[in-house]
């Protein structure tokens, strides 16, 4: 199974990419842990997690084709 991870704003700078495909990740918690391992600078960042364009709270299981976005603090307006 494969999911797409999107990075926005400052987090796209931290990751050096705005989009990435990740295989075999069961849930959002494992994903963020894996991300922090890959990009240690993420550890100190504040962000929300959205799955298929819905902000989630806590842990959510992932399925093939899901789109997970890491959303740093908003600045609209």
């Amino acid at each position: 199974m494969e999911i797409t991870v999107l990075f926005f704003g400052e987090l796209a700078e931290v990751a050096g990419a705005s989009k990435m495909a990740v295989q075999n990740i069961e849930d959002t918690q494992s994903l963020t842990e894996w991300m922090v391992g890959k990009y240690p600078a993420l550890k100190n960042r504040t962000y929300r997690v959205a799955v298929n364009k819905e902000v989630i709270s806590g842990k959510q299981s992932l399925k093939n084709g899901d789109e997970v976005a890491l959303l740093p603090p908003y600045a609209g307006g």
Partner: protein
Amino acid sequence: MEEKKHKVHKVIQQGAISGEFIATSINKHSGKTGIGAHTIFLGQVRSDKKEGKEVVAIDYSAYEEMAEKEFHAIREEAFAKYKLTCMHIHHSIGLVKAGEISLFVFVSAVHRDEVFTACADIVTQIKERVPIWGKEILEDGTHLWKVNNKYVDKNG
């Protein structure tokens, strides 16, 4: 105006929102004679001092599909909550210079009480819920990331 409530309007537009665009938008309402009150909110890029340097522009980016979805939800909720005749939201993406307009919220109703409350509420909802980011470009070419003051980390 019932049929308009569920239409999805594209909110995000490239670059600053011009005074002409706003004037045209106002003029378009002259035929809607049931309206007695409009409120307009304009968000302008502020030339803050950051680390001793001036902000000369904000480069806005968005998670566009989710942002449009949130704008639509905010709109629908406002129509359900307040007795509005119509409502328009426009937000910039890309570079907007200090002094230029990046957000235009236009709320219309029969009476004034409704539009004052609704407009303030809509602007608050936009700042809290819509995934838009602003890269503040400083006078020396470096940048910082703007943060709205009510951001809550739902995962923390």
